């Protein structure tokens, strides 16, 4: 359980840390923009790395399965919710918009899995960013 020990050490380092440098809003925004950055800025670097790897890998696997990235839309309710979920990917969503990733029609079953992977990666990133905010305001240790 070396990871467990590393996280415990990280928590000990964090508890001895000096004054908080960043405001809660900045932490929330950073955590949304880059998965795990909100934790990293508070010295929770093991958690940050694990969150970054998990969310980014999920997004990348979704794209590798030729999943679809939802564009802003006012059509079907599920499409709109899909867009809201994708928006949670933050910087990854912006990159996909800039480079045109995931803008194709779903034709195979794995592409449908991929679309779900991308949406869930966004939702997990929302949770991660809110967790970083909770750490900053002291709602969580």
């Amino acid at each position, binding site marked *: *359980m070396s*990871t*467990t020990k590393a*996280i*415990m050490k990280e*928590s000990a380092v964090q508890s001895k840390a000096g004054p908080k440098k960043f405001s809660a809003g900045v932490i929330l925004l950073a955590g949304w923009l880059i998965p795990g950055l909100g934790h990293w800025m508070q010295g929770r670097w093991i*958690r940050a790395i*694990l*969150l970054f*790897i*998990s*969310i980014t*890998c*999920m997004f990348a*696997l979704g794209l*590798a*399965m*030729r999943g679809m990235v939802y564009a802003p839309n006012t059509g079907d309710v599920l499409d709109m919710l899909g867009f809201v979920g994708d928006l949670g990917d933050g910087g990854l969503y912006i990159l996909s918009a800039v480079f045109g990733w995931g803008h194709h029609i779903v034709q*195979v079953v*794995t592409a449908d*899995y991929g679309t*779900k*992977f991308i949406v*869930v*990666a966004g939702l*997990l990133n929302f*949770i*991660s960013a*809110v*967790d970083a905010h909770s750490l900053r305001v002291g709602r*969580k*240790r």
Partner: protein
Amino acid sequence: MYTPSHFTAVLLFALFASVVFGITQRSETRAMVRYGVYCFSLFVLGTIAASWVMWLIKH
């Protein structure tokens, strides 16, 4: 193009989602690990159970 099987997709999904759930839903390190493992088990076993239910409905 990456084309995993259904089960591989489930395992990957469960792994990444469980890591995030473990870190974000618990405060203590050991509790995080335990909760992550618990979520992973529920994802995988739940999927297997649902698969059998669907198989039974079909037959």
